[in-house]
């Protein structure tokens, strides 16, 4: 007796649908970690998890977030978002 395997024609879409809840949960962890680590309360309040249908990402639209995240020659970096991302998985700089 033999049986065959027929891959789903919509495998990618099915996989993405299965992964979305996990990615949203991870995104939530990263957002919470970022808010907790940020020194500037406006940076902390601005962090959000976005699901655009293709993927899930964590973002801030706060104009001065880079000063907190990356520091300056007068203030050390908090690296709030990158540290939280590294905590949630293998963070690769880009």
């Amino acid at each position, binding site marked *: 007796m033999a049986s065959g395997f027929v891959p789903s024609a919509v495998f990618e879409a099915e996989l993405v649908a299965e992964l979305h809840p996990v990615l949203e949960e991870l995104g939530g962890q990263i957002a919470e970690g970022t808010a907790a680590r940020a020194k500037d309360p406006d940076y902390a309040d601005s962090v959000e998890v976005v699901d655009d249908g293709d993927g899930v990402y964590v973002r801030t639209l706060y104009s001065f977030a880079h000063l907190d995240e990356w520091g300056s*020659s*007068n203030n050390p*970096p908090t690296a709030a978002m990158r540290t939280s991302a590294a905590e949630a998985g293998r*963070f*690769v700089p880009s």
Partner: protein
Amino acid sequence: MSGEDLLIDADWLACVSEWIRTQPEHEALVAGGLHTALPGDKTFPMQLLSQLSDPQIDNDVPGRVRVLFQVDTWGGNQALCGQIAATTKALLRDRFAGHQHDLAVNGSIVAGRVLLGGTHRSFDTEATVGVENGKQESRIRPRARFDFTVPLMAGR
């Protein structure tokens, strides 16, 4: 006490900092030196090495951890600032990665493959007081920053 061995992680920030600052190409360019905390009295051009994440255990190799760092360069003109950052990246990629290094102060370490982020070149938005070319002045200075991850473990 249970009598079990207590494994204390190495001070990776001190190790990587010692390695970078002892490279001749680096010493020749960075008059203000490499720091691991922002100094009160600053001499430019200078660099800051920050360890961003706690060492994460790398499950592929026992005893190996993965650490995320950030390198900032300030001072000089834009070209020199960029050159210092580029030199540091080249040293990390071509000389630090994939080798064991016997450090004079911090012992022996082994570095894995360094993953470098892109360099962001800009100017700091705040003026900083410091010495540059023998003169004390307060000004906005060029900046080049990048981050990198590297797997690290103790050498033998």
